[in-house]
């Protein structure tokens, strides 16, 4: 499973992309898995405003995940 981070979240975590061998059942489980790394990750990933895209489509915490999914986390968008 490929995990991507963008914008300020990418900077805070200091990670652009990571490959996960595990396959959490849904986005919530993935967030819990990532947050277990350390307290900073838990803090940054617990923000209510963080958005998630599964396979490049905006999604939510209940979205089921599969082995080859691409999951991205990012702050609210500010283009335009």
């Amino acid at each position, binding site marked *: 499973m490929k995990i991507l981070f963008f*914008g300020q979240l990418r900077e805070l975590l200091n990670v652009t992309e990571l490959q996960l061998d595990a396959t959490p059942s849904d986005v919530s489980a993935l967030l819990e898995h990532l947050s277990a790394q350390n307290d900073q990750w838990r803090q940054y990933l617990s923000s209510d405003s963080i958005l998630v895209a599964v396979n*490049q489509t905006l999604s939510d915490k209940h979205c089921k995940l599969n082995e080859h999914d691409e999951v*991205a986390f*990012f702050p609210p*968008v500010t*283009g*335009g």
Partner: protein
Amino acid sequence: MIKSELSANLSPNDYISVQHDDFDLAHEYRNLANNSQCGAVVTFCGLVRDMNQGNQVVALELEHYPGMTEKSLMDIINLARQRWQLGDVRIIHRVGKLSLNEQIVFVGVSSQHRTDAFDACQFIMDFLKTKVPLWKKEQSTEGEYWVNARQTDQQQVKKWIS
């Protein structure tokens, strides 16, 4: 599956580009005005302005999610085409480093009737502002910071959904 449904609703003349290079409004307009069935062309251009959220802006850097950005823009054109009778739609969004007064984004819509062109162009910009994975980091005289999403942009989108 989703892809073919989407492209079914895109006109062959629709154009989406996420690019570092600048764009030329006159070129975009010529493509939109080319359609003899369309009596109305509405364009929006967004520019780097000198003040934002109280800071004196010098430059900005635009980050995006390659692939998803283009897909999101296609989805938005698709949604717009479900609501209005449109001729052609063209969207360009720049990424990378941009200086003061540089062009950031172009949205152009042609239609038979002006109300459709106006509404669709505004709809596309409202959705672009809240749904497309782009992030601005501004360099101001006060330092460098990520731009905060604006509540008013969320409200703007809700007006189309309700």
